[in-house]
């Protein structure tokens, strides 16, 4: 299944109600993000049979994703019909029993489809029912069924690494129950959701699946005047802008607080503003209510040039593609200029009302910077990119490249994939475009499968230098081809460390590991993409011989029993003990 991710994603949709409208909407939503997707649906209220029967067509489909879309009104149909029948303690037991039933089917799915992502959902119950008014004033209650059940989902998710929970109950609260359901569709077609809810659900599921595959934007670029604060700092002065603890100033402060939280989740923030740099930085350094200090920003262009040029420069400085950028500006003309000149940059419409800024940002984040987990590298990302800026200053003053590289005091730690490193390894395969020889994308489950396979070697490289601990920035995956040769499936380095010969040290150590397994030959591939030209020359430079070229894809071979790759003198190498990375 591993290689299929780039081509087709098969999604199975199982439910207690009719989900054809959801399937259509999800298909459309994923195709908008260029997914080639096929959706398999269970029959109406047929999901138990489909999961339980090992011969069901569900298992023939071998889906990459199984969405078990369950509705509270179906799970607790008996209780809703007889709300007066159950005592307080019984309701907790009923909710647990319902969760255990779902868990039974999840266990079956995870056992029979070990590489498949299983998506569960939190449930909700109608907010108005026969017990409304009585609930919370007596022992009778219905709402606590959903509360107990949803709490059990966290436990189920913790037991299985391939399970994610989609918080549908919060979506319903956000949209409003009356907009969410359409009783006409239930009566006529056994669909629980309204047309509008179907679209909201599909959007949210799409974001969850993109987050799972690591397909998110990376950098949010903001304007300053009337975006990060109210007013124009060049005219109103630092004391005159609207940013504070009351009134409209509070709206901007709250907006900044949300931006700061995005940084903690690993989103890079940058500034693109027409301003005097000194005036703008003065606000970030001195304003008592500012929530984003200079350190929150990975880079900025604060000058009087056009914003398209500045955004191009930011992309070059941060070494990420323009298709990773989202640009926020209060000025419609600036937005239009960027949309027209840089179509890869996402430029959302932006509210004029400062009270709408926080909600607009949260909506943007959910859609374009979705996350299903946060790892250590995410939280330190801005510091990494800023350290890279400092390295560039050093490089400019160092004279020769070698002098510069020696002055970085690099230490590369190399180890085999383990429970700690696998999430980051998967994330790197999903995000790395430039120094990525084959650009194969893998999920955590894929990497786990390979790490457990004795015929596959999965290694990581962590780099420290005098400016920062860059964390894990390199991945090497090789598969055994025959008893003498191994093929490099994946060799990648984060763009932050390109040009430091880190790959030499990585391949040298990997070769030693393979020699230890009795291997003689190592074969590398370069599969060209529009972005991975920086990696083109690595095999030739390290002494591999070109053995094949078909449609631009080149294969290179090194007889590792005869030829060793040298570790650059300026990189100290340490081998990590298993499980050491944390």
């Amino acid at each position, binding site marked *: 299944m591993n290689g299929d991710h780039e081509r087709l994603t098969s999604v199975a949709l199982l439910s207690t109600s009719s989900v054809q*409208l959801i399937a259509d909407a999800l298909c459309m939503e994923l195709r908008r993000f260029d997914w080639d997707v096929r959706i398999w649906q269970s029959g109406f209220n047929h999901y138990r049979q489909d999961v339980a029967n090992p011969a069901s067509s569900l298992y023939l489909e071998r889906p990459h994703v199984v969405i078990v879309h369950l509705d509270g009104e179906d799970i607790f149909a008996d209780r809703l019909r007889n709300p007066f029948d159950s005592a307080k303690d019984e309701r907790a037991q009923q909710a647990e029993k319902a969760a255990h039933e779902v868990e039974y089917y999840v266990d079956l799915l995870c056992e029979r489809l070990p590489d498949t992502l299983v998506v569960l959902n939190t449930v909700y119950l109608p907010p108005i029912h026969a017990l409304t008014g009585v609930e919370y004033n007596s022992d009778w209650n219905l709402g606590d069924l959903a509360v107990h059940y949803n709490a059990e989902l966290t436990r189920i998710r913790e037991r299985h690494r391939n399970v994610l929970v989609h918080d549908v109950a919060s979506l319903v609260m956000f949209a409003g129950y009356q907009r969410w359901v359409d009783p*006409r569709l239930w009566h*006529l*077609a056994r669909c629980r959701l309204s*047309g509008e809810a179907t679209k909201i659900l599909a959007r949210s599921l799409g974001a969850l699946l993109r987050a799972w595959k690591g397909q998110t934007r990376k950098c949010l670029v903001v304007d300053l005047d009337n975006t990060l604060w109210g007013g124009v700092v060049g005219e109103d002065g630092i004391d005159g802008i609207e940013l504070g603890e009351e009134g409209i100033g509070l709206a901007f402060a709250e907006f900044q607080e949300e931006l700061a939280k995005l940084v903690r989740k690993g989103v890079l923030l940058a500034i693109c503003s027409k301003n005097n740099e000194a005036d703008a930085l003065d606000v970030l350094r001195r304003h008592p209510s500012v929530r984003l200090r200079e350190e929150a920003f990975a880079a900025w262009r604060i000058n009087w040039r056009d914003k398209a040029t500045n955004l191009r420069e930011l992309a070059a400085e941060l070494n990420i593609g323009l298709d990773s950028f989202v640009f926020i500006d209060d000025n419609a003309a600036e937005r239009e200029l960027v949309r027209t000149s840089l179509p890869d940059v996402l430029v959302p419409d932006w509210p004029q009302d400062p009270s709408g800024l926080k909600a607009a940002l949260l909506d943007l984040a959910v859609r374009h910077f979705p996350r299903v987990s946060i790892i250590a590298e995410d939280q330190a990302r801005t510091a990494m990119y800023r350290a890279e800026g400092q390295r560039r200053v050093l490089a400019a003053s160092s004279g020769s490249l070698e002098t510069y590289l020696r002055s970085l005091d690099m230490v590369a730690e190399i180890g085999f994939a383990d429970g700690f490193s696998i999430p980051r390894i998967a994330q790197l395969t999903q995000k790395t475009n430039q120094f990525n020889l084959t650009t194969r994308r893998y999920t955590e489950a894929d990497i786990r499968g390979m790490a457990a396979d004795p015929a596959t070697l999965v290694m990581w490289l962590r780099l420290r230098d005098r400016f920062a601990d860059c964390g894990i920035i390199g991945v090497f995956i090789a598969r055994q081809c025959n008893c003498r040769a191994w093929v490099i499936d994946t060799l990648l380095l984060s763009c932050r460390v390109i040009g430091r010969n880190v790959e030499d040290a990585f391949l040298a150590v990997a070769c030693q590991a393979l020699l230890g397994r009795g291997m003689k030959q190592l074969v590398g591939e370069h599969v060209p993409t529009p972005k991975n030209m920086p990696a083109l020359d690595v095999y030739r430079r390290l002494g591999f011989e070109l053995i094949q070229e078909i449609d631009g894809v080149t294969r290179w071979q090194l007889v590792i029993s005869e030829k060793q790759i040298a570790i650059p003198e300026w990189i100290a190498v340490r081998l990590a003990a298993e499980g050491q990375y944390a």
Partner: protein
Amino acid sequence: MLDARLVGAISEIFGLPRDDVNPKSGRDTIIGWDSVGHLKLILRVEEVFRLRFVSTQIPGLVSAAAIQEALDRLQK
């Protein structure tokens, strides 16, 4: 006479050229106008015209002419 927005909705939901849509277009003449296609079309028409059919009407709206007639009545 069909409203251009209704023609647009039918053409969009069933992937037909607009010229192929006429008052007789319906469940019997359009491939894809099955029970799911029917609901998708009704929901799209409600969205475009910003109105809501009652549940008892929906099963009978199985041709462009029938939908147009219901729209005319609702918009009076």
